[in-house]
C-alpha cells in the first residue's frame, strides 16, 4: 500500500477508490490515506524533549509505547493555536514507526476515486512543503490537500533529526 497515492496519473489508479481521513489545520482541509492512520486520540500530556526541531512537541505514552508528537501547525509554519476540545492527535505509521501528529480537528473518512486527484498547483499557500503534497482534490464544495507523510520526513531530514 506504500504507493497507493503515488501513481496519480496512471490509468488503473484513476478508477480505484481511495479512502482518506480528512482533518483541519488553520481553516484548510487535508487528507491522508486511511491505511496509514493507526488511531486518533485526544491530547494527552506531552513530555517535552529538549534539543529537537521546533515542530517536535515531545513524546507521549501510548499504552506503554513512547511515540514522538509532531505539531502539524509548527511543521507547516502556520500560526500556533491553543489546543481545544477539537484538537486531536492522529497516530500514524510513518515508514514502520508510529508518530503522532497534532491537528486542529479530524472530520471524517471520505471515499474518492483516484481520478479526482489533481496534481497540486505550482504555488501553494501557507508554507506547506511542496514535497509532501501528493495532490489536490477539488470537489464541488470543498478543496482537500492530499498529504504524503513519508515524504514529509525526507531522508535528509531524518538524518538531521537523528544527529541533532
Amino acid at each position, binding site marked *: 500500500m506504500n504507493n497507493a497515492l503515488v501513481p496519480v496519473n496512471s490509468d488503473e489508479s484513476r478508477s480505484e477508490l481511495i479512502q482518506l481521513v480528512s482533518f483541519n489545520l488553520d481553516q484548510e482541509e487535508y487528507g491522508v490515506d486511511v491505511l496509514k492512520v493507526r488511531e486518533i486520540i485526544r491530547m494527552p500530556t506531552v*513530555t*517535552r524533549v*529538549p534539543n529537537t526541531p521546533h515542530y517536535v512537541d515531545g*513524546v507521549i*505514552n501510548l499504552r506503554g509505547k*513512547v511515540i514522538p508528537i509532531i505539531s502539524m501547525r509548527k511543521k507547516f509554519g502556520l500560526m500556533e493555536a491553543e489546543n481545544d476540545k477539537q484538537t486531536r492527535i492522529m497516530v500514524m505509521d510513518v515508514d514502520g*514507526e508510529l508518530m503522532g501528529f497534532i491537528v486542529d480537528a479530524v472530520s471524517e473518512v471520505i471515499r474518492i476515486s483516484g481520478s479526482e486527484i489533481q496534481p497540486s498547483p505550482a504555488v501553494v499557500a501557507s508554507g506547506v512543503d511542496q514535497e509532501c503534497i501528493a495532490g489536490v482534490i477539488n470537489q464541488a464544495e470543498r478543496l482537500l490537500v492530499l498529504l504524503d507523510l513519508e515524504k514529509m520526513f525526507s531522508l535528509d531530514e*531524518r538524518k538531521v*533529526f537523528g544527529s541533532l
Partner: protein
Amino acid sequence: MPPIDCEDQELLEGFLAETTELLEKLDDDLITLEKASDDTELMNRIFRSIHTIKGASSFLGFDLLVKVAHKTEDVLNRLRKGELLVNPEIMDVILEATDLVKLLVSDIKAGEIQERETEGTISKLLPFLSEPAVSAQAPAASAAPAPEGGVDAPPTSVEQAQVASASLDAAPPPVSEPAASSVPMPDATVAPPQKTGGEMVPKKAAPAPKPAEGKSEDLSDNTTVRVDVKRLDDLMNQVGELVLERNRMIQINQNLQQGDVNKDDFNEEFGKLTKRMNFVTSELQMQVLKMRMLPVEKVFKKFPRIVRSMARDLGKEVDLQIFGEETELDRSVVDEIGDPLIHLIRNAMDHGLETPDERVAAGKSRVGTLVLAAVHEGNQIIISIKDDGRGIDTDRVGRKAVEKGLLTEDQLAAMSQREMFDLIFLPGFSTKEKATDLSGRGVGMDVVKTNIKKLNGIIEIKSEKGQGSEFILRLPLTLAIIQSLLVEVEGEVYSIPLSSVLETLRVDQRQFHLIGGQEVLKLRDMVLPLLRLQKIFNVQQRYDKNDFCYVVVVGAADKRMGLVVTRLVGQQEVAIKSLGSYLANIPGIAGSTILGDGQVALIVDPVGLIDSVEGNAGR
C-alpha cells in the same frame, strides 16, 4: 544435488547445535590438557568430541569439515595412544585446526559454504602423523598410556560404527534413509579417509536465517533461550496470581461504582491490593529477569585460549586464574562485555606482565599471575582483571601523553594520580614505541572505555608500580530495567540511572565557583565541574530563584561531574523505553520511561553529558 528438504533441515539443525556445543567445550579441554597431559579421561573426551564432529559432518556431506576433523582426529589418536607427547607445538596446530573447524561450522550455520583454504592447516598436521612414535620415552614419560580397546573402547566404537555406516553410503548422501546411522555395524573400524567425488560438494542450508558474515567466531546461538521447566512453572504461578489480583481489582472498582462501600473499607481493601500487586509484579519481574540471565562463563571460557596463545607469542609465562564464572548477568550485557575484556586481558598480558627473566630479576616468581574474577554486588556485577606485573608507571604515561600532544606540561603538572591512570584511556595513547600485532595503536583502551560507558558502567584502576594493576569494571545487571533517581528540573521530571549516581548534595548556589566560564564546586579534595540540566535541556524557569539546589554527582567510566537540579523526587525502578529512531541520538538523553502516573519521563545519559562538557572544554 537436491536442495535440503525439511527432514534434512532438522538433521542439520541438530548437527549444528551439537557441534557448537562440542566445540565450545573443546577449546577449554584442550587448554586443560596442555597442563595435565596425563589425564586419560580428558584426552579421550577430546578425542570423542572431534570424532563425533567428523562423523556427523561426513554423514551430512560437509567435505572440508570432514577432512580437517579427520586429520585432527588422527593426530589426537596418536597422542591418545602415547605415540606422541603433548607439547606446545602440537597444541598450537591442534588449536589452529579447531579454529578452522569452527570457521567451517559457522559457514554452514550462515548457510553459505565458502571455499576456505584448509590445506595450510592440514599440512601442519601431517608431520605429526608421519613422525616416528616416541617409543623410547613413551612408557616412561606418559605415565598412563591410554589402554587401547580397554575402558574407553566401547563408547568410541559405537561412534565409529556410526561413522563407518555413514561413510559407506556417504556419496550420494542418504537423504532417503537417515536411519542408516543408527544401524550398528559389527565390524567397526576407524572410518577410512574419505575420497569423495565432485558431487560431494557441500550443500547450502536452504533458508539461512541470517548470513552472519564476518562474525565467524561467534558460534553461540543467541536467538533462542533454553529455560528450565521449573522456572517456567514458577512464572506461570506468578501470572496466575496476577490474574487473581486483577479480578480483585475489578471487584473493588465495581463496589466503588455501585457506591456500597464506605471509605474506610475501601481504603483498607485497596491498600491490601496494592501491596499484593506490588509483591506479585516484583516477583514476576525477578523471574523474567532470571530467564534472561546467562552465566558470565559464556564470555570467560574463551580467555584461557587467548591467554595461552598470547603468552606463547610474547614469550611470557602466565597462570590464568578465573573466579566466579557462574555469576549471572543479563544477555544484553554478556554480549557487550566480551570485547572490552579481551582488550583488558591483552593489555595486562602485553603491558602489565613482565617476561620471566625480568620477573626473576625483580624478585618475583617466573610465572606471572592473571586473575579474572566476577562477583555480584547489589545491583551490579563487578569484574576485575588483576595482574601482578609491573604496574602503571605514571611518570612514563604522563611523559608519553605530553609527547603525543594529548596534553600540555601544565596540565600534566596539575594532575592527580588517578587522573594520570585515566590517561591510558585516551584515544591514540600508547606507551609502546612501535605498534605490534597485539598492541600499541592506542585503540584498545579507548574501546574499553566506550563499551563500558555504553553499558552504563564504571571503570576503576588500582595500580602500584612494581606490584601490578587491577582494572575493576562495575556493570549494571541488566539494561532493560534500571534503578533510577528521579529529579525535577523546574517542574520537568528527569530520570538519572542510579548506576552512575555517586552521591547527591544539597548546596547553596553561592558556593559555586567559576573557572574559565565553567561552573565548578569544591567537593572535599576534588573540583567538580557542574552542569545545569536546566540550561542544557532548555527548561523554562518556573520557580522563583532559590539559593539552594541539589547537585547529583555522576560518574561515567573514569569521569565525575555534578548535575544541578531543582529538587530530588526519589528513587524508582524504571523500565527503559526507546524513543524510536526519529528521536534517537539526542545528546544527553538515553531513552525514556513511563512513570507511575502514565507520564513519560526522559532518562538522562550522564555519559553523553560528560562527553559534551569535555567537548566544549576542548573547543
